């Protein structure tokens, strides 16, 4: 068996309708104990491929299959899912909707019960699998009280208890904050070597050390490359970039060096390897450092003058004083004693881990929840002839808000009507509505889809539409809650550039995100929330020096910056 591989695909194709192939002519072999990363643009069929491996497709979800998949010699299309599942386990993307029980121990027991494990052996198995994911103290807990990262670890523990040899992770961290992502990547790294791992993931900086080989699939479902990690990032860098797939930061930098003639041996992929290369190759140190500095100043520490927006330091637009907020059911403050001001034309980032109160704060600013004195939030109306406090009914006209889940805000049954909706409610005349809507459709690249029902769009298109329907209103302030969540590199860059353009025209942009790369690349000022308290408020550049706060609030700085600050001592020598 060792030579024939644990998983073997031969000319495998799949389509839901018999015509449009999601996966096309895939032939590959995965060996026992290998750790494989699957990369590709969104919608390229990565998740479909994983569901084909354990027979869910085509047995539970129907479609047309050509070619074969052999898992441990069994044909995936014909062997019952229940038999295949004894060898393959999957951790899914959404922590909420992969559990069927209410408590941690019951959830892990569920898989064991299905496999007819005797009751007397269960407790020991449950406990030992929880120990492997560092969650033993939570044995009795209700699942809904756990954080996202913990839920994903419980999900992994339930697979470890069932002792499946092949573990698949379908974007396990995409719903998690930086802390949860680190927890999950650490646990995956520690998994025993005899498990075969197949991982779909975007956040490569945290995961890059895990993989042996990388599989790249293009948007037509074809295999472009399947190569060892280092060779992969050396040889396919251009193609990956073109597809809009995220690249690990260090590899991007090393590739740039490579192109400029500095060829480090062993192609470093993580920070430690890069540091070692710096130590060893004294002759190229200065030159490498210069390139690094250039990269940093482009994406992370932008010089103060590079913000072209018209941020007016004298014109305050949002003022938050002594803000405290408590939800009815809870006895803990969701937000406690928050004070800050936002000036007109600012590009503000709000960060903090899940449950730190970011969304609550944003919803308070647009007065979705009432505030009680001495908490006070004042919005100023810069448009009126006299600069003054905005009245309650003006607030929604001044501030636009893009929700975390785009589907929540869809009100109409076509893309065009969806974008025009706000203008119609506002009472604009038909001519200007159609002009503005057409313009917005063009900017977002949604022209061809203008008659489609919003619910039929892909995840990325839904996100674009939800942003478009708010931006078309020309609000004075735009608040975006996780706008880049689940988007690929190209879509993210386009969206952020659009926000930068708006900001230059004077719109105040407030963005809530987990992505520290976006924060450092685009925002001028930053609020850091930690357990409902304001841990930092000030310019984003200054935040880079606040090592204590960065550590205690479980946020990270971009890897390249870490490398930069760690090797800067060598460079001076």
């Amino acid at each position, binding site marked *: 068996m060792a030579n024939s591989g644990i998983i073997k695909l031969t000319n495998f194709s799949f389509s839901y309708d018999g015509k449009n192939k999601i996966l096309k002519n895939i032939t590959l072999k995965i060996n026992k104990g290998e750790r494989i990363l699957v990369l590709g643009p969104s919608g390229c069929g990565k998740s479909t491929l994983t*569901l084909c491996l*354990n027979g*869910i497709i085509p047995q*539970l979800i129907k479609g047309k299959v050509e070619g074969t998949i052999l898992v441990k010699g069994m044909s995936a299309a014909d062997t*019952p*899912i*229940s*038999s295949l*599942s*004894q060898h393959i*386990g*999957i951790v*899914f993307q*959404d922590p*909420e*909707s*992969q*559990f*069927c*029980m*209410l*408590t941690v*121990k*019951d959830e892990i*027991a*569920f*898989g*064991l*019960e*299905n*496999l*007819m*494990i*005797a*009751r007397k052996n*269960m*407790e020991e198995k*449950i406990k030992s699998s929880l120990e492997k994911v560092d969650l033993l103290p939570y044995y009795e807990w209700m699942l*809904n009280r756990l954080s996202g990262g913990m839920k994903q670890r419980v999900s992994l523990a*339930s697979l470890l208890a*069932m002792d499946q040899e092949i573990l698949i992770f379908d974007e396990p961290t995409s719903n998690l904050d930086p802390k949860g992502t680190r927890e999950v990547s650490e646990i995956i790294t520690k998994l025993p070597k005899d498990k075969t791992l197949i991982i779909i993931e975007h956040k490569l900086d945290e995961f890059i050390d895990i993989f042996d080989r990388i599989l790249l699939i293009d948007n037509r479902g074809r295999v472009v490359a399947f190569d060892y990690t280092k060779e992969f990032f050396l040889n396919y860098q251009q193609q990956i970039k073109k597809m809009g797939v995220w690249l690990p930061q260090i590899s991007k930098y090393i590739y740039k060096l490579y192109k400029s003639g500095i060829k480090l041996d062993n192609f470093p992929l993580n920070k430690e390897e890069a540091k070692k290369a710096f130590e060893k190759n004294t002759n190229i140190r200065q030159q490498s450092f210069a390139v690094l500095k250039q990269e940093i100043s482009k994406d992370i520490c932008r010089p103060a003058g590079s913000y072209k927006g018209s941020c007016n330091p004298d014109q305050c637009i949002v003022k938050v004083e002594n803000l405290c907020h408590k939800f009815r059911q809870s006895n803990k403050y969701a937000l406690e004693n928050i004070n800050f001001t936002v000036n007109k034309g600012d590009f503000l980032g709000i960060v903090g881990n899940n449950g730190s109160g970011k969304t609550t704060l944003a*919803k308070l600013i*647009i007065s*979705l929840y009432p505030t009680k004195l001495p908490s006070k939030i004042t919005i100023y109306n810069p448009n009126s002839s006299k600069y003054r406090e905005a009245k309650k009914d003006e607030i*929604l006209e001044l501030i*636009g*808000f893009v*929700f975390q*889940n785009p*589907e*929540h*805000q*869809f*009100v109409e049954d076509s893309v065009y009507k969806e974008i025009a*909706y*706000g203008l119609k*409610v*506002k009472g604009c005349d038909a001519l200007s509505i159609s002009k503005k809507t057409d313009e917005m459709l063009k900017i977002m690249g949604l022209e061809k889809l203008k008659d489609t029902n919003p*619910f039929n769009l892909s995840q990325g298109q839904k996100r674009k539409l939800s942003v478009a*329907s708010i931006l078309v209103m020309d609000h004075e302030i735009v608040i975006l809650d996780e706008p880049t969540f689940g988007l690929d590199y190209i879509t993210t860059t386009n969206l952020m550039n659009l926000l930068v353009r708006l900001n230059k025209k004077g719109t105040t942009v407030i963005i809530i995100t987990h992505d520290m790369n976006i924060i450092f690349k685009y925002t001028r000022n930053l609020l850091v929330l930690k357990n409902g308290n304001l841990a930092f408020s000030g310019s984003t550049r200054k935040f880079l020096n606040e090592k204590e706060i960065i550590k205690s609030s479980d946020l990270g700085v971009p890897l390249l910056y870490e490398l930069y600050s760690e090797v800067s001592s060598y460079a001076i020598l």
Partner: protein
Amino acid sequence: MQFFEYFERDSVLHRINPSIKLILIIILVFTITFAYDPYTPFIFSILAIIQITLLGKIPVKQIFKMILPLSFILAGITVTSIISYNTALEEVSNIILSWKTIQITTGSIKFGLTIGFRISCFLLYSILFVATTDPTDFILSLIVQLRLNPKIGYSTLVGYRFIPLLSTEYQNIYDAHKIRGAKEKSGVIAKIKRFKKYAVPLMVIAARKAQRVAIAMSSKCFCAYPKRTYFRDVRVRKIDIMYTILFTALSIIIFALLIKFNILNWGYRSLR
């Protein structure tokens, strides 16, 4: 919308097998339905409260908290029953109040109280069951003792887990629409209209979640074998048999006493 909720405690009632508890309650409540006097349901209501507080270790305050939102409906039904009672059915009418066509007699008050106490009796025994029964144990007991199909049983558990999730989603949609400038009115009719509008996104979200869970369950070998083992031990134990005997005996004694003192009135006959 959470009138009744489960209270995690370690008590006698919590330890009783859910299926046994359910069957006993159904039999008792069914029997009480045939009692046409206010005293019988009243006495059994008191018995329920005693059981919940003493055997279930749940404070009286919590019981009233749960019943309070429904007390208006309860009072409404009682008053309507008093007014709508057909006084012609009475052998002797003691008129207390007479206004236009409405006649309130001792008989009609008795009838109203009968209906009122009967409903409160239903409510209290429902609380007794819900507040002291772990939902997971309940479903497992239905599967093990009452031979419910595991596929249906486990799906029900998943559905139970989705209720709070969907109510959060509903709130989010409401907020999002408000921000988009939709004028959301208050009132019952507006609420129903709104629900119709929100149904599409809610359904889409729920259907997707449901499919994801179904995939997750299948990939954890759900129904791999015709049988399954159970981590939780939901057997019928000694305590269940003892509780059944005591509960039945006590109920029979109460019924016997009520009959002996001519208080119990079986069936729909005129009230004495």
